[in-house]
């Protein structure tokens, strides 16, 4: 099983980036061996609209089961849901913290997006 965490840096000790669509990096962590794959989200940081949709499609393509982030807008949420990715909002601390919390079953998944789209 793999999970995705939005991150301000490329290492597992980096701080979680609270934004989803415009996060600096998205780390894909394989829970079986905690191997990290880094997705550079730079092109989306500067996208002027629909950044969340693009990032969501990318995360969906990586075959992850869950996304842990700060805020995920409604369009991205819809896209992730279609790709079968569960979303947890309001996750903070470092990426490692999030991974540990996930392992210990402390992550609560949302039924809905928590931010309105950015027009």
């Amino acid at each position, binding site marked *: 099983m793999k999970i995705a965490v939005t991150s301000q840096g490329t290492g597992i000790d980096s701080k979680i980036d609270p934004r989803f669509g415009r996060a600096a990096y998205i780390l894909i962590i394989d829970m079986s061996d905690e191997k990290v794959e880094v997705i550079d989200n730079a092109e989306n940081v500067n*996208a002027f*609209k629909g950044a969340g*949709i*693009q990032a969501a*499609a990318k995360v969906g393509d990586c075959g992850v089961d869950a996304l842990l982030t700060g805020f995920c807008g409604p*369009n991205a949420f819809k*896209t*992730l849901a*279609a*790709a079968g990715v569960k979303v947890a909002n309001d996750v903070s601390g470092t990426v490692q913290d999030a991974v540990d919390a996930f392992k210990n079953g402390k992550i609560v998944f949302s039924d809905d997006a928590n931010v309105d789209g950015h027009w």
Partner: protein
Amino acid sequence: MIISVASGKGGTGKTTVATNMAVSLGAGVRLLDCDVEEPNAHLFVSPVIEQSETVFTAVPEIDKDKCTLCRKCSDICRFNVIAIAGKTILTFPELCHSCGGCIAVCPEEGAITEVGRELGLLEQGVFDAGDFVHGRMRIGEAMSPPLIKKVRERIKPDQINIIDAPPGTSCPVITAMKDTDFVLMVTEPTPFGLHDLKLAVEAVKLLGIPHGLVINRSDMGNDDVWQYARTENLPILMEIPFDRAIAEAYSRGRLMVESMPEWKGKFQELFRRIEKLSKAWENRN
């Protein structure tokens, strides 16, 4: 002749200038309210609406049975309207700019078709001084430029067209000002007013349209606007002092020239100065 009346920020008196100038000219005027998000010129000139049509823009609809998930459409779309998530294809039509790119690249016959997204209403009618056109954007619609373009299609170049442009300096106001003969900018002498005026002037310069200034509530604030106008060589075509009677007329949806007929001549003079400047611009070479 097409004059657009613009302002960097809202609430500077743009609609007051556009409507009073239109009515002062008396006849043969076309007033086009392009502030489709919040049209209010009609409140002052009380047009009789004779035609009304719903305006749509084309957005893609995907037939999931015919789509092979090849991704060509989602790759070409700059606006991220189409997303492929796992085995599903999703669309976000509210983000679509109707460029037609996705339909052009789709290799599967009939997988993408065009359907309409409602933009709002286009209404046309008559008022005291001529013809009136405006757009009313549908609530919840996020993109105003396509509807503004529809309003502009009703311009009659052989008449005097006065466009009440939306406030701001982004896409909507550019759409309203583009290819007009003159941009009349309305500002007020406050720091915010000046800040937004500067942005608007930069945009108009890029478009290469002759322009001039109306300073509203000209006896308030400070002198910075006049100084800026001097350094920029920006002609000040009219000054409207703060007057309780003007504010009152506005709040009741009445025209200045109705409650204070002495302003009629001043608005006619304003138009003559615009005409002169735009002729001079045409003959500048």
